[in-house]
């Protein structure tokens, strides 16, 4: 019997009264890609933090190649051969690509950085990823997110890791970049690197992993060989309930046009976007990262300048309105970047829900704390947000629950038109399903939704109408039933002209 590369035996961890990990066991062989699956809040990130030495487990054993593994610092974890790629990029924005790749492990001579050697190592790391075209001297903040992620992965390769842990590495990658990444992962696997692959995309896990382990509420509830037949079982284990309908359908009727956009043009993108959004319609916009989908909504909503084109709301010209004016007209925008733009992470749930409309919390000219808390508590139960208290700070919630708060703000605002930019990115299946359900219910009430997503099954599953963006231009809209995944992909990469 081969000694497993990484063996985790009955690890437990509590924070105060909260048991983050109750009992987690996991075994990964050398050269194995192991999918770690679980909803947000299931304990995946706590487990990762223990492996990277940010936390120490309360009890339980971890062995690396048969040796006791208990690193004290992240640096020690890395030199022991355990490298981590976090969901949130941990790059230093103003340093160059090369400096970021070798950050913390700069080759030195007499205390000075050996620049030639550093360049050589950076180049070789990028070559392994087939990303040699990245500009080594450019500050990373100038690169698109997908490229930044490649830099992040290149950095993890520097220490020749034995175990590589990847947390949702594809959540912000386009299909093309994902393919490149998969090739790299498989090549690393063939060289004997063990990979723990954390993802919500079961299809990806199926493509990459040979084994899986499911975490739920801090417990490893199931493990086995990854194969298509196991998918229903995995989904059941994840949510602890049957997920009959991932895309619940609420019947809704489509009415008259509400919002008409004609040849909208932004600073760089979009170049030419026209669409009509009708009441009770869910309009999906597909496209690869960088096609200009986000920029379209931002130019429309007044967050970025509108250079040309016409926007009409209920037949009234609404060009170049600031966000405030749109909100007054009950049009709301959900940012794709909930951490940096969408939410105030250090404020409580109530303040995040009500920032655009405090009116219901006010009585006698003042905001009443009690009233705010009880209103927030209502949204918390309505949206199924997992939180201890309405005055809990948002950074203590998991990604899925944060996103529910962000969406809750638009619901509280009673928006008639909801512009949702990647509302399901990086959140668990249960939260996703709930967001789809909410979108359907909104449409049934005659409200309209613009839904940007890079994940085609959800667009096809939820939307009435879909348009595809490619290089700043939006294709003609077609009913969702007339699109196939292949059509959308072809349109997104500009392969056919229809």
């Amino acid at each position, binding site marked *: 019997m081969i000694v497993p590369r990484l063996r985790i035996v009955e690890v437990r961890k509590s*924070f*105060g009264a909260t*048991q983050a990990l109750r009992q987690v066991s996991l075994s990964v062989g050398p050269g194995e890609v192991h999918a770690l699956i679980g909803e947000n809040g299931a304990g995946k990130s706590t487990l990762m933090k223990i492996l990277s030495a940010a936390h120490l487990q309360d009890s339980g054993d971890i062995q690396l190649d048969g040796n006791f593994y208990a690193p004290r610092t992240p640096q020690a974890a890395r030199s022991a051969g355990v490298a981590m790629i976090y969901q949130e990029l941990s790059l230093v924005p103003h340093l160059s690509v090369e400096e970021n790749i070798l950050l913390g492990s700069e080759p030195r001579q007499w205390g000075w950085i050996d620049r030639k050697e550093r360049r050589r190592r950076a180049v070789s790391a990028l070559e392994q990823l087939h990303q040699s075209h990245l500009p080594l001297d450019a500050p990373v903040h100038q690169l698109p997110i997908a490229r930044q992620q490649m830099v992040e992965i290149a950095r993890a390769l520097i220490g020749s890791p034995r175990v590589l842990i990847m947390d949702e590495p594809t959540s912000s990658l386009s299909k093309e970049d994902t393919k490149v990444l998969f090739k790299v992962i498989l090549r690393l696997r063939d060289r004997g690197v063990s990979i723990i692959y954390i993802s919500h995309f079961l299809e990806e896990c199926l493509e990459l992993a040979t084994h899986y382990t499911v975490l739920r*509420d*801090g417990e490893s509830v199931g493990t086995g060989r990854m194969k298509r037949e196991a998918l229903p079982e995995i989904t059941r284990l994840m949510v602890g309930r049957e997920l009959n309908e991932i895309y619940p359908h609420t019947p809704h009727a489509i009415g008259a046009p509400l919002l008409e956009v004609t040849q909208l043009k932004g600073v760089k993108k979009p170049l030419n976007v026209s669409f009509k959004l009708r009441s009770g319609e869910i309009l999906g916009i597909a496209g690869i990262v960088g096609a200009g989908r986000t920029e379209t909504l931002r130019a429309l909503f007044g*967050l970025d300048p509108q250079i040309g084109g016409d926007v009409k709301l209920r037949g009234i010209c609404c060009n170049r309105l*600031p*966000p*405030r*004016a*749109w*909100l*007054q007209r009950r049009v709301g*925008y959900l*940012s794709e970047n909930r951490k*940096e*733009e*969408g*939410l*105030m*992470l*250090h*404020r409580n749930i109530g*303040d*995040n829900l009500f*920032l*655009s409309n*405090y009116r219901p919390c*006010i009585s006698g*000219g*003042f*905001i*009443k*704390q009690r009233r705010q808390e009880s209103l927030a*508590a209502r949204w*918390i*139960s309505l949206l199924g947000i*997992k*939180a*201890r*208290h*309405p*005055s*809990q700070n948002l950074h*203590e919630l998991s990604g899925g629950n944060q996103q529910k708060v962000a969406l809750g*703000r638009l619901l509280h605002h009673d928006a008639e038109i909801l512009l949702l930019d990647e509302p399901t990115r990086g959140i668990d299946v249960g939260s996703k399903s709930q967001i789809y359900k909410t979108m359907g219910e909104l449409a049934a009430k005659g409200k309209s939704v613009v839904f940007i997503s890079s994940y085609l099954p959800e667009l096809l599953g939820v939307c009435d109408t879909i348009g595809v963006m490619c290089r700043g231009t939006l294709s003609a809209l077609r009913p969702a039933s007339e699109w196939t995944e292949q059509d959308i992909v072809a349109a997104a990469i500009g392969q056919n002209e229809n």
Partner: protein
Amino acid sequence: MKTEIPTSSTGHLDRFNLARAVQMLGPFLVLAFVIGFFAVIMPSEISQTFFSAYNFKLILTQTVIVAIGSLGMTMIIVSGGIDLSVGSVVALTSVLGAVLIKAGVSMGAMIVAVLATGGMIGLINGTIISLFRMTPFIVTLGMLGIARGLAKKLADNQTVNLPDIALPSVGMFMADPAPNGYYVAPGIAIAIDLAIIMALVLNRSVFGRYIFAIGSNEATARLCGVRTRLVKLSVYMLSGVFFGLAGLMQFSRLRQGDPSTAVGIELDMIAAVVIGGASLNGGTGSIMGSMIGALTMAVLRSGSTQIDWPNYVQEIIIGVVIILAVGLDKWRQSRSQS
């Protein structure tokens, strides 16, 4: 685990409110520690005068200027900004007051002019910061020089002395009306009233929530339709009025116009706000905390003076207390999070 989550569970509620209460208590703990420290080390004859009602009133009077300035500074710091020009604004407005009184202007008109000048300087700071998106640190650093220079020009580079007849009315804000009675100097009453009003504004008004929102995440505030530039501009302008009022109090205390006064007083105010639990990153802070912070520093000064410690010891001790207070706050926060 799922069963523990419902928000109606009172156990969680209580623990949560307790944690928040402890959070609020932080600045009081520091103040209590400082008072306790003096109680222990003071010889009894000094401690009798130190712990007298009269001395307490004296300490309050000494707190007034920093406290009023801290009201504005709290708003600015919560909004994610900073103002380094306060000392110069205090000097400029107090010199302006002296020049006006000397020229025979009435008290009422002088007060209006002083407050308006403070507000005007705040408006200029706020306009540059919000419209041209410049860093508050740089803009107010520039204003620190400009306002100090203007003060010196206005005073012709010397103190502006008043005719004897004007002294009592000018000094009334900071004069103790009855040294043995319960009444306090008008300046103290004004500071307390304003603190209550500002605490309400910051915590209970939509404007206040917007200030917190901007300090916490300006992008989110914009997304939610907050007119971020207008709010920031109002914050600096309103704070400017408070700094003008602090200048008035300084004038009332000195009973002359001194263009070289109040150098570095903004640092005392920043320290008070930070001891009071605010973060220089914005988004946190409270009026109550800042007031206790200001009081803590005044108690330290007064105690050190009465023990007859040399000035340098005072300065070192105050420096240590600032670092300890903020360190304590960090430590408690990291504990409450884990």
